[in-house]
């Protein structure tokens, strides 16, 4: 009797939540893997190359092969590095890019944690992303990594401000911090239309926040080799990579929720 009670109050909800978490994370990681593949293919065709085409049909297994390669390689800890922080930085980046997905609504009521302050939570998590970068740059004990980290951190902190102001504009229109409410408020019209300038600002800031072209200055491959993660190898590097791409998808998700009507977009055809 007591055991079944324990099972029902603690174990069962935990199991359900873990299952939901996996249902979010596994597609996300697959999406990240194929986003890299997609990017490489598109860049290749822009430069009149073929891109990855050897592993599997059309090179479709290339991301998996890359992942396996990075997993098998040796993890190198630089001798002058601060070992604990050096190992923690990529983990932090990766974890932060995953936990933000807890509040993104996928459909009406289909959200892991429907909290009251959803958008503030997203904003808080994205403002923490800068720590992974700074810690990586400092702990590597290398000039290039440190300078790269400073550039990257400065850029991320500055564009955070404009993202915050854009979010406030949207909140004034909605009157709630809940993401489902924000999506609900766009039933009649997407905020991208009345708030077009804000939408553009948000998009530009999102590019800067994720260090993508034309804001890929922090990477500085010609003078800083690659920015803050120069010293990283194998799985630690892979975590940075996964975190960065997951952040891009997250920023796109935020854009969709704030301006493009979220899941209402898919709903529209059935109601009209």
């Amino acid at each position, binding site marked *: 009797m007591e055991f079944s009670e324990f099972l029902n109050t*603690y174990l069962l909800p935990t199991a359900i939540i873990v299952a939901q978490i996996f249902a979010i994370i596994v597609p996300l990681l697959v999406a990240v893997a194929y986003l890299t593949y997609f990017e490489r293919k598109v860049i290749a065709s822009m430069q009149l190359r073929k891109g990855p085409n050897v592993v599997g049909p059309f090179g479709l297994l290339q991301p998996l092969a890359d992942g396996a390669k990075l997993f098998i390689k040796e993890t190198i800890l630089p001798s002058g590095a601060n070992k604990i*922080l050096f190992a923690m930085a990529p983990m932090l980046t990766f974890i932060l890019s995953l936990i933000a997905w807890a509040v993104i609504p996928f459909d009406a009521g289909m959200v892991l944690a429907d*909290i*009251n*302050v959803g958008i*503030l*939570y997203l*904003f*808080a998590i994205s*403002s*923490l992303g*800068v*720590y992974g970068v*700074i*810690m990586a740059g*400092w702990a590597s004990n290398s000039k290039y990594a*440190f300078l790269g980290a*400073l550039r990257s*951190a400065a850029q991320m*902190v500055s564009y*955070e401000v404009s993202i*915050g102001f854009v979010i406030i504009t949207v909140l004034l229109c909605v009157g*709630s*911090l*809940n993401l489902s409410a924000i999506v609900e408020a766009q039933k009649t019209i997407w905020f991208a239309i009345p708030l077009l300038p804000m939408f553009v600002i948000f998009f530009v800031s999102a590019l800067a926040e994720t260090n993508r072209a034309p804001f890929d200055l922090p990477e500085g491959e010609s003078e800083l080799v690659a920015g803050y993660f120069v010293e990283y190898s194998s799985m630690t590097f892979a975590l940075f990579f996964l975190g960065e791409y997951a952040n891009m998808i997250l920023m796109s998700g935020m854009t969709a929720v704030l301006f493009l009507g979220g899941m209402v977009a898919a709903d529209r055809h059935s109601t009209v």
Partner: protein
Amino acid sequence: MVQAIAFYAFAFVTIAAGVMVVSSRNPVHSVLYLILAFFNAAGLFVLIGAEFIAMILVVVYVGAVAVLFLFVVMMLDINFVELRQGFMHYLPIGALLGLILLVELFFVIGIWSFSEDGNMLAAVIPIQNISNTHALGNVLYTKYVYLFQAAGLILLIAMIGAIVLTLRSRPGVRKQKIADQLSRRSEDVLDVVKVKEGEGV
């Protein structure tokens, strides 16, 4: 039960991180422990149902203030041995400050538990079916609107002050004047000259 466990976990980590902020040898580690302490304080806020304050704590203190701390501390070239030497010198005044804060804390708790008016000041459970963002906004923009505006004004003055203090115009600096550059016309600055062969201009 889960809440109690969470409370003790957050509270223990907050205090442990606070101790490490003071005692850790490397200032960068100190700042990182400070961030951990902020984080756990935010966790405590969530536990008492103040999720708005918790998120603001993370956004403002962890996301902005601590980043600047970290920036400054990382760039400093600190001599750790020298830093240790002053420790005994500053110990009495530090201990005094700590003692004063402790006594004040006792006063606050004492008023809550013994005075009859004190119960009014203690945390009130917010009315249900209103989120605490709404509840906060309701008092902040009505009852305390003048204080709120005054706080904003003070921050504005601080901002202007910081700009005034750090902005200095040095002579002899070549600056780009974009308006001048754009208003240049090729007819004004270019002469097309027919040069005869073997003579030069």
